[in-house]
C-alpha cells in the first residue's frame, strides 16, 4: 500500500496549489458564489488546457491525462483548500467516474474525451429529495421505448446540475424495488422533458440543482440493471474524493487558526501563547493529520483495488467530514467575534464543511457502514 506521495505527486500538488493560489483567492470565491453560474469560464478553460485537470484520472485512451485516483484526490484536496468554484467535482470526480465505472467501451470513447478536455460539463443526478444515500431509495423511473428510454420523476442535490451539458442519471425499471432494476442513463442537460432549478444552498460556493424529468428521453449507460453492482463503488469513490476536498479545507482552517493566534494579542500576549488556544490547535492538528491519513489511505486503496476499500472509504468520509466541521467551528471560535462576520473568510469554509458533512451520507451513516463493511 502506498502510504505517502511520490516525488512526482508532490510536485503535481505544488503545481495545482500554485494555480489555486493564483486563480481562487477568496475575493474571487466571493464574486463567483454570488452568481447563478457559480464558476469562471476563463479559469475553467485555463485549468483544463494548462493543467488538464478535468481529465486527470481519465485514461489517455479516452482523452484524459491517464493519472490515477490518487492524483484526482490531490486535486480535490487542493481545490478544497482554495474553495475553488468550478465544476470539477461534478464533472470529473462524480460524472466521469460514473461513466468510467458503468459505461460501455463505446460510450467511454464517446463521452469521456469532452469531459476530459473541459468542454463538456457533466453532472451525476443520483440523489432524490428523500435525501437517502443508498441506491435502493431511487424512485426515478426509466421506461423502455422503441429507441431508448424515457425518465420520469425528479432528482435533487445535483451538484452543478443547473449548468451541466450532460446528465448521468440513476433510475429504476418501473415495478422494481431495492437494489434491483437500477441502471444509469445519460442525456443532454437541455433535453426536452428536463426542467432544472437552481436550489438555494447553504454553501453558495457549491451549486445544487433540482431536476424534474417528464418523459425525458435518455440513453442507457452500460448494462441494464447493473446499478446495484456499479453504484456502491461509484459512491465510495465519490465519498473519498469529497473526503479529500474536506481534508484540504480542514487544513486551511488549521493554518488560518494558527496564523490568527500568532497575530492577535489580548492581555498583552499573543492569544496563541494561552494553553486554551494552543491545546485547541494541537487537537485540531491531530484531527487534521488523522483525516489526511484516512483520506490518503482510502485513495491508495481505491488505486490499488484493495479489498478493504469500501470500509476505508466510509472511514475516510466520516473522519474527514467531522474533522472539517470541527476545524471550521474552532477556527471561528479562535477568531472570536470577527470569525462570525461575513467579511471574514472562515464562514465560507464553515458552510462548505456543513454541506460536505451531509453530502453523500453524513458521518453517522458512514460510521455504520464502516463497521458493517469491516473485515475483522
Amino acid at each position, binding site marked *: 500500500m502506498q502510504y505517502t506521495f511520490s516525488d512526482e505527486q508532490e510536485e503535481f500538488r505544488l503545481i495545482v496549489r500554485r494555480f489555486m493560489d493564483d486563480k481562487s483567492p477568496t475575493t474571487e470565491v466571493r464574486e463567483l458564489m454570488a452568481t447563478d453560474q457559480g464558476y469562471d469560464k476563463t479559469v475553467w478553460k485555463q485549468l483544463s488546457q494548462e493543467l488538464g485537470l478535468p481529465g486527470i484520472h481519465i485514461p489517455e485512451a479516452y482523452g484524459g491525462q491517464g493519472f490515477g485516483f490518487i492524483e484526482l484526490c490531490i486535486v480535490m484536496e487542493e481545490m478544497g483548500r482554495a474553495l475553488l468554484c468550478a465544476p470539477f467535482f461534478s464533472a470529473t470526480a462524480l460524472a466521469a467516474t460514473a461513466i468510467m465505472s458503468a459505461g460501455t467501451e463505446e460510450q467511454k470513447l464517446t463521452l469521456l474525451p469532452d469531459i476530459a478536455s473541459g468542454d463538456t460539463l457533466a453532472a451525476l443526478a443520483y*440523489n432524490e429529495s428523500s*435525501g*437517502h*444515500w443508498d441506491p435502493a431509495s431511487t424512485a426515478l423511473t426509466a421506461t423502455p421505448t422503441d429507441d431508448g428510454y424515457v425518465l420520469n420523476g425528479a432528482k*435533487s*442535490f445535483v451538484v452543478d446540475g443547473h449548468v451541466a451539458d450532460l446528465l448521468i442519471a440513476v433510475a429504476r425499471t418501473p415495478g422494481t424495488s431495492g437494489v434491483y432494476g437500477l441502471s444509469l442513463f445519460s442525456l443532454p442537460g437541455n433535453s426536452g422533458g428536463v426542467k432544472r432549478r437552481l*436550489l*438555494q*444552498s*447553504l*454553501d453558495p460556493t457549491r451549486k*445544487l440543482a433540482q431536476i424534474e424529468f417528464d418523459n425525458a428521453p435518455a440513453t442507457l449507460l452500460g448494462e441494464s440493471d447493473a446499478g446495484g453492482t456499479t453504484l456502491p463503488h461509484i459512491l465510495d469513490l465519490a465519498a473519498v474524493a469529497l473526503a479529500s476536498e474536506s481534508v484540504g479545507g480542514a487544513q486551511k482552517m488549521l493554518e488560518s487558526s494558527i496564523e490568527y493566534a500568532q*497575530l*492577535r*494579542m*489580548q*492581555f*498583552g*500576549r499573543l492569544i496563541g501563547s*494561552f494553553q*486554551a*488556544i494552543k491545546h485547541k490547535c494541537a487537537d485540531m492538528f491531530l484531527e487534521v493529520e488523522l483525516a489526511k491519513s484516512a483520506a490518503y489511505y482510502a485513495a491508495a486503496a481505491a488505486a490499488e483495488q484493495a479489498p478493504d476499500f469500501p470500509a476505508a472509504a466510509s472511514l475516510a468520509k466520516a473522519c474527514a467530514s467531522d474533522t472539517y466541521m470541527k476545524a471550521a*467551528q474552532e477556527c*471561528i*471560535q479562535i477568531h*472570536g*467575534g*470577527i*470569525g*462570525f*462576520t*461575513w*467579511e*471574514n473568510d*472562515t*464562514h465560507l469554509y*464553515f*458552510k462548505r464543511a*456543513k*454541506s460536505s*458533512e*451531509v*453530502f453523500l451520507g*453524513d458521518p*453517522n451513516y458512514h460510521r*455504520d457502514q464502516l463497521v458493517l463493511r469491516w473485515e475483522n
Partner: protein
Amino acid sequence: MTDTNTSAGGQAASEQEIRNEVRTWLEQNWDPNLSLLEWRKKLIDSGWGVPAWPKEWHGRGLTIGLGDAVDDELRKMGAVSVAKTGVRMLAAATILEHGTDMHKEKFLYQLLTGEDTWCQLFSEPGSGSDLAGLTTRADFDGENWILNGQKVWTTSAHHAKYGMVLARSNWDVPKHQGMTYFLIDMDQPGVEVRPLRQMNGHASFNEIFFTDAKIAPEFMVSKEGNGWKVAMTTLAHERRLADGIRSWGRGDKGTGRVYDEQKAEIATVMEPYKWYPQRAGRVDLLIERAKATGKYDDPTVRQAIAKVLIMAKAAEWTGRRVKAAHALGRQPGPEGSLGKLAGSQVARLAAQAHTLIAGADAMLTSEDGAMDGLISEILVSVPAESIAGGTDEIQRNIISERGLGMPKEPRTDVDRPFRDVPRNTVG
C-alpha cells in the same frame, strides 16, 4: 406630577398595600387609547413606571421585590410599561449610580418614555475578551474631549441618540486606570455608524468610527481615569439584559393605540435579536423535527437528541435551583456563572442533532431549506453562541478563578503603563 405618597408616609408598605395602591391607580389612569408617549409620561409621572428608582428620579424608592410586584400588577392589567428595551436600562443604571444631577435630569426621562434610544460603545476590534485593552483615545483639547478610534458589536447604534462610551484618556498608567467613561451624542459629524454583516446574513451589530468626535467635559461620568469602575456597573446589568430579551419580544396583548405603538417599538428594537433563538440551537424543535422526518425511529438520532435534552434541561434546572436558593436568602454560589457555558454546548450539540435530522436538506436554505430556512439559520448561527457576551474560554477562566478559587495565571499586562503593553495595531 402627582406626589402619590405610598401609604403610611415614610413607613415601609406591605406588598399587598403596594399592589392595591397601584391597581387603584391603574384602574383610574390606564387607557389603551392614549398614545404610547402620553401614557408613558403619565406612568412615569406617577412613580409607578420605575417604582424601585429613587423618589427624586421618577421612582418611589421601593425595594426590587416590591418593584417586581408593581410590574406584576401592570402585567395583570395589561398596561404597557415604560421603555425597557435595548441597552437603555444599562445606561439608566449607570447614570443613576455614577451620573451627575445634570445627567439624570437630561437623560432619564426621555430614556423612559422611549423617545431616546441608547447604545453601548465598549468593545473594539482589538479588544474583545480583553476589554480593558481598548485603544479608542479621548484627548482633552482644553475645551472638549476629542474621541478617535473604533468600536464594534454595537447593537442598534444606527438609531441610538446617545452612547455610553469607554475610551483611554491616559496611556501612562496601568490599563485599568487609564480609561474614562463618557455619554456621547451620536448625532454628530465625528461619529460614523456602519452595519456589520454576520455569517448568517443578518446585520445585528454596527461598527462605529470616531474621528475627532466631540464630548463636552460635563458629559464625563465620574472622573477621569475612573472609567473601568463605571463600566463595571454597566456590565453588571448586562446579564440581566440578556435574560430580558425574551420577555420584551412578547409585548403586551391588547387593542388600542398604545398597543400598536408599542408593537412598532418592539419590532424595531427586536430586529437585531430575531436570530437569537436559532443561535441557541432551537432545542424545542428537535423531537418534532425527528418525528416529521421519520428520523425518530433511528436510535442514533435519539441518542443525539437525548444528549441535547440532558444538557438543556439540566442547565434550565440549574438556573431554577440558583433562583430558588436565592429566594430562600442563600448566598448565590458560583453555579450562576455556568449557564453561558452550558448554553454554548447545548447550541453546538443541537446544531449537530439538527444536521443529523435534516440529512441532505441541511445543504439547503431559505425557501428550499427545512422549515423555510429556519433549520439552516440554526446551523449558521450557533457558532456565535460560544463567543458573544464572552467566549467559552473566558467563561472557563471566570468559573475556575472566581467560582472554584483556582490560582490566576501570571499576568504581564496589568502592572505597567499601558503604553508599554504589547497590543494589536488596529485600523
